[in-house]
């Protein structure tokens, strides 16, 4: 009797529900009548638990605090190095390098421009903590906490000095990278910093070959040129540089007074030690003054030209957005310029969405890229202009100092200072002249 009852019940239920059923159900799921087979449900293993994310945030806080203490108070390179190794292992290999502070920048930008996207609190913490610490203690995050910095710091074997013009020129790449990353994140096109993170494949011990090669090359260069990614590419480093200029405390080469012994002069592998400088010779001063006036006038021109060029590139930059790419493909297909269809265009046609709507969406996005291009290009023009102005300004210095922006707080210079040896009581203080 049971099977019959089941069938009747099933029929009744399906009659009631027949109006509500949607989707394809070609073969009704069986009622197992002969056996008592229970229909299983699929397993759904959960993601990494939130509690680990909070642990990561706490570890970041502790590591930043410890790094600042070791760099500024203890002045101990070996301890800094130990923390660097720990950070590489924890934030790099254990945590697989994601989310990192550098990439979190894009999540923050994305959340500002996309009303639907809410940033997880841990991502906010990873973005803000290093910035706040930098405002107080300088770039101690770069020194010993950032896993990308750590891996490069550890491979630095034979540092060569980079000429000043190359250093300044290459650094512009980081500004361009930052501007592009912000543009792409703000338009919801891509997270380029993550896509081209050079060391992520090494941290994960798997990944695309191209990125692995990129990372390998950077590490190879990094054996001779100190921390190439940090100095010339890192978009987060750009922000840290500027905040570090204002930091309350900072790395000083000497623990107390500079005795002008020149021993530290070549000790920085990142070219961040500034020599004492007296006044410019009158002749040079006159030329520089004229140049500065010219550059100040040129600044608005550079900003405008940059913005104009940036917005003119919208055809190229907007291709980063998938909707634009899809609309372009559909346009080619509709106008008969191509026979080939892509998965994306087939998928789009299957949704039954109007082509006109798609075109409209794409042109809206292009307009965003045009506007964003003005800002991006203007920003790059401004950076170039300010850089040129900075090169024409003479800053008087009496002592050997670290460059506030460029100093990565690695602590390599400490041991070169004789005053440091006195502080550590490895050397007796000599009265009188040095």
């Amino acid at each position, binding site marked *: 009797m049971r099977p019959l009852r089941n069938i009747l019940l099933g029929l009744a239920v399906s009659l009631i529900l027949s109006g509500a059923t949607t989707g394809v159900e070609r073969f009704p799921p069986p009622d197992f009548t002969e056996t008592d087979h229970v229909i299983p449900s699929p397993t759904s293993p959960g993601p990494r638990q939130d509690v680990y994310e909070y642990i990561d945030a706490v570890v970041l806080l502790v590591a930043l605090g410890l790094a600042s203490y070791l760099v500024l108070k203890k002045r101990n390179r070996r301890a800094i190095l130990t923390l660097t190794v720990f950070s590489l292992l924890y934030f790099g290999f254990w945590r697989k390098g994601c989310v990192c502070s550098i990439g979190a920048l894009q999540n923050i930008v994305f959340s500002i421009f996309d009303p639907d996207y809410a940033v997880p609190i841990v991502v906010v913490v990873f973005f803000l903590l290093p910035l706040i610490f930098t*405002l107080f203690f300088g770039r101690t995050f770069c020194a010993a906490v950032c896993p990308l910095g750590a891996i490069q710091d550890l491979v630095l074997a034979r540092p060569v000095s980079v000429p000043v013009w190359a250093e300044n020129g290459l650094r512009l790449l980081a500004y361009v990278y930052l501007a592009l990353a912000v543009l792409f994140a703000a338009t919801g096109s891509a997270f380029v910093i993550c896509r081209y993170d050079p060391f992520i494949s090494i941290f994960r011990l798997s990944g695309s070959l191209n990125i692995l090669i990129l990372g390998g090359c950077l590490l190879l260069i990094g054996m001779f040129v100190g921390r190439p990614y940090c100095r010339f590419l890192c978009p987060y480093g750009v922000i840290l540089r500027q905040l570090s200029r204002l930091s309350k405390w900072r790395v000083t080469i000497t623990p107390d007074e500079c005795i002008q012994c020149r021993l530290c002069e070549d000790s920085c592998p990142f070219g961040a030690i500034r020599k004492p400088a007296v006044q410019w010779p009158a002749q040079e001063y006159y030329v520089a003054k004229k140049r500065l006036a010219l550059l100040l006038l040129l600044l608005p021109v550079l900003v405008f030209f940059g913005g104009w060029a940036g917005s003119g590139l919208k055809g190229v930059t907007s291709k980063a957005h998938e909707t634009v790419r899809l609309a372009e493909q559909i346009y080619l297909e509709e106008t008969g310029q191509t026979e080939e269809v892509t998965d994306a265009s087939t998928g789009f046609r299957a949704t039954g969405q109007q082509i006109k709507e798609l075109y409209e969406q794409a042109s809206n996005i292009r307009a965003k890229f045009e506007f964003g291009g003005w800002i991006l290009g203007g920003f790059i023009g401004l950076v170039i202009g300010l850089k040129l102005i900075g090169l024409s300004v003479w800053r008087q210095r009496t002592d050997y100092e670290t460059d506030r922006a460029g100093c990565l707080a690695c602590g390599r210079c400490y041991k070169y200072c004789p005053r440091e040896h006195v502080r550590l009581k490895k050397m007796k203080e000599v009265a009188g002249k040095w």
Partner: protein
Amino acid sequence: MAENNKVINRRNFLRDGLWGGCLAALGVVAGASARKNRKNDLVWQIDPYKCIACDRCATFCVLEDSAVKCVQLYAICGYCDFCPGYFELGATVLETGAENELCPTGAIKRTFVEEPYYEYDIDEALCIGCAKCVKGCAAFGNGSLFLQVRHDRCLNCNECSIAVACPTGAFKRVPADEPYLLKKVDHA
């Protein structure tokens, strides 16, 4: 270590002002993101209704062995004898020989339940997320086989490589407390 020059001159005044401004700006960023921030993390998942079962999930994942696997939602499976997700279209005999199977790695297990029903289970260790079975099941069956990101494997990259490659935007971020997007079970 400490900045000793507590002299109030124009440069220090400007610097302190700028410093305070930067701190305030960071506060604003924190506030703006806290206004709508999420306690939970976000994870990647595939919307099965947007997925077109291309094979990119199998190849674009940064993991050697993709985090995307096929899921069998038994509740909408027809338990067919001739399963279009299991057998090659041209299969003449409904036997579990490799030559008849659609799955390139033999990850689907076919077990007899009762006449005429068979149950199909996915062996996740073998599944590579190529979606061949998904295509078959969607075309000729109930569509009970579909792809999902398995969160015990997924590294939750900030930018998912598969999401970048996905042609239909089926990859999206979902709250970590509801990490799966299973198809709806419509029948009673």
